[in-house]
């Protein structure tokens, strides 16, 4: 049997290689690229922090940063809450509950692009069934993604429709990992259903919730396809999140350096927020 202190690293090597090639090296390249500019002649040169200096004075960047933060401040808690609620609903051992679980997870199987196109039709002002329904019940047609006031919230709705079922799976697994005897012990200790949820379920769901919140945050900061397909950052720049800014810088203005600068800032923001979220959801035992 071959066994040495290198054996564990050998087993880790494929994963580490993947991490290096597809994550770490691109990050370093992107961070390096954010310090370059392209001349009119097409050759790259080192420009130092010029791209960042430009962004700091660009009102469009600041507006985009605001939109990105607003989007995330709403969507991450919302998706976590909706996913948790759904997980609690389908956790109960009811007949046919598998059907509901399947239906809730199904949006996951629809590609982001296709779901954006479908929602475009669904919410359409003339042909969309939703507006027809809203008019029928007397609320009246809504502009949804066609209005600067509603576009961002429409995108939040679409992303939540698609994401909640996916995150629900992790929370459902978390609920199953709580030993049933702990609930029973609480019931015998005199806890009502609400008290059991408040004092047993909720604290024991800390870890899965932390995972979902962190992973969801990272994904939602990189939210892009529906913006590109449905709103192109509009109307009036109301949905122009940082990812869209990065895209535009690179592919509309051909300014790779600026695009990479936006991406680098985005990465830094995600890191800071993820660290904060992890700290927030630490258990008292870990804090001790």
């Amino acid at each position: 049997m071959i066994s040495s202190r290198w054996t564990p690293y050998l087993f880790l090597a494929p994963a580490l290689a993947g991490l290096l090639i597809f994550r770490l090296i691109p990050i370093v390249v992107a961070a390096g690229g954010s310090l370059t500019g392209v001349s009119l002649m097409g050759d790259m040169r080192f420009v130092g922090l010029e791209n960042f200096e430009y962004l700091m004075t660009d009102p469009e960047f600041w507006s985009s940063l605001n939109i990105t933060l607003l989007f995330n401040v709403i969507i991450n808690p919302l998706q976590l809450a909706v996913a948790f609620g759904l997980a609690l609903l389908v956790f109960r051992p009811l007949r046919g509950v598998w059907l509901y679980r399947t239906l809730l997870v199904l949006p996951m199987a629809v590609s982001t692009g296709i779901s954006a196109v479908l929602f475009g039709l669904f919410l359409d002002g003339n042909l969309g069934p939703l507006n027809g329904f809203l008019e029928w019940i007397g609320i009246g047609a809504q502009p949804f993604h066609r209005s600067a006031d509603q576009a961002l919230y429409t995108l939040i709705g679409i992303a939540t429709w698609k994401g909640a079922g996916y995150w629900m799976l992790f929370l459902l697994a978390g609920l199953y990992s709580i030993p049933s005897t702990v609930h029973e012990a609480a019931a015998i200790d005199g806890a009502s259903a609400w008290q059991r949820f408040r004092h047993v379920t909720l604290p024991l769901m800390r870890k899965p919730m932390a995972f979902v919140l962190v992973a969801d945050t990272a994904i939602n900061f990189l939210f892009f396809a529906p913006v590109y397909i449905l709103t192109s950052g509009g109307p009036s720049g109301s949905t122009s999140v940082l990812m869209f800014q990065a895209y535009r810088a690179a592919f509309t203005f051909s300014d790779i350096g600026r695009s990479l600068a936006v991406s680098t800032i985005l990465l830094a923001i995600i890191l800071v927020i993820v660290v904060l979220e992890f700290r927030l959801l630490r258990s008292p035992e870990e804090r001790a």
Partner: protein
Amino acid sequence: MSTMTIDNLRKSFGATEILRGIDLDVADGEFVALVGPSGCGKSTLLRLIAGLEEASSGSISIDGRDVTRLPPKGRDVAMVFQNYALYPHLTVRANMGFSLKLRGDDKATIDSKVTDAAAVLGLDALLERYPGQLSGGQRQRVATGRAIVRDPKLFLFDEPLSNLDAKLRAQMRTEIKALHQRLKNTMIYVTHDQIEAMTLADRIVVMQAGRIEQQGAPLDLYDRPANAFVGGFLGSPAMNFVKGILGSGLFLAEDGTQLPVPDGFDAEQGRSVLWGVRPEAIGPVDQGFSGVVEVVEPTGPDTQLLVRVAGQPLVVLMHKRMRVSPGDQMTLGVQGADIHLFDAADGRRLHL
């Protein structure tokens, strides 16, 4: 201080009947052990008493009050689980005080009750720890502590020691016994370990296939099992059984070997019976039946032998050291009072 009465209790899960009519009275301060093999329904019975499962029919009363349809909260019982079921996110102190906090006791009361219970169980130094930082024995103690701070009407134990190693199990067994002698609460204790049941309980209830086979004081059950199942279940090493028929004032094994019957026993000849005798009741004598030693197992104080008698191996337990070797011939005997005869068909005991 409390009593419990169970009347014709039944429980089915779907088409499977787990409890088939249980009647049980538990006196105030009594320590009752429910024993039986896996799947006999003893844990289900305990969960029904706790209110964790709902009875299909029949009734459970605690202190004369019918609690059959009440949730656990309304029964004032405490339970110690096999896996302890401690709250992993709470300290030992908070685990033990949880029920008091829910009940709305003030902080000073909770503190003093938790401190008292911790002192009884030797948990003083561990109060600020989390369950994940405790050993198995310590967790078991916390689970017991969580039960005693409440001073409930009934203590329920669901195999509380089966996750501990043998040495710790023996130690905790003694602690639980001491605890009962001190608190004098009514306790119901489920175990599959007949030694635990024998040593702890005032009364043992032996269950099989959803029914109570026999109940009584541990030594009464040991000495006078009502049927072959109880005889075989209580005692370790287990009772020896030989199949055969009754002759005139003797027992004829299937291979024709003659074995003695209880003194003064006289019943229909030719009846198929099981001849039972405990390993420690057999010993070498001058005149008796013969056997060939197959295996010798010295344990220090005892010597356990496997002796082939009437074509089958009998376990013989001698409370002394013996110089015998496999292949040796032995003449064995048994006192008439130590012989148990059971009906071969239904297993029932044939004599008083």
